[in-house]
């Protein structure tokens, strides 16, 4: 039962990947259509945040939420490493 389901899943995955590959043959890469947000960041980044480093302007200015959660992820990772390495006390 389980083995047959595995085979069916394998065939489905192969089929989906083939379809996706056929569909993506004639897509032009490196030529995105929607550049509004990126152009806005490049134009207004210095004026909005006051930082001449555009990367810092994005990750600490426009997307500070992202950085906050990233810091929390690191904190949780440190806590987890210490917790599991310490073992039973």
């Amino acid at each position: 039962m389980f083995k047959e389901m595995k085979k069916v899943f394998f065939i489905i995955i192969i089929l989906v990947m083939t379809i996706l590959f056929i569909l993506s043959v004639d897509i032009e890469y490196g030529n995105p259509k929607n550049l509004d947000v990126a152009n806005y960041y490049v134009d207004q980044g210095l004026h909005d945040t006051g930082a001449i480093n555009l990367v810092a302007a994005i990750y600490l200015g426009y997307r500070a939420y992202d950085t906050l959660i990233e810091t929390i992820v690191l904190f949780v990772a440190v806590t987890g490493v210490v917790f599991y390495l310490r073992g039973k006390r």
Partner: protein
Amino acid sequence: MGSSKIIRTIVQKLFPFIVLFGLYLISHGHLSPGGGFQGGVVIGTAIILLALSYGIEKTEKKFENKRLSMLEKLGILTFIFLGFLGIFMGHSFLGNFLPLGKPGQIASGGLMLLFNIAIGIEVATGVSIIFYALVKYRGEI
């Protein structure tokens, strides 16, 4: 334990410069490539280097594990506190309420410098705490 005298001497001379470079990366994060994460990892590497050459006991006398983990919590709480301070000053959460200043100077960018310092403290102490835990509970130097 610890390494030979040559390595210990070189690490002793090198340590302040590595920490200085890390502080530079953190404090100039909004002006040049770098920032809190990178500078914090550099400072954490300095502590790891000290532990590798001098042994974990001597390093723990200088940089206590308890104090480091307190600093880590302080860093992340500073970040969240600054975020809520933005609400109280009449902006959004994590909104900038300081003056933007002149572009290119170190006192520009508003809250960015404080964010970078908080992230730097958090990353530096986090990296060294992970190293301490690996050494103390899973093997020795």
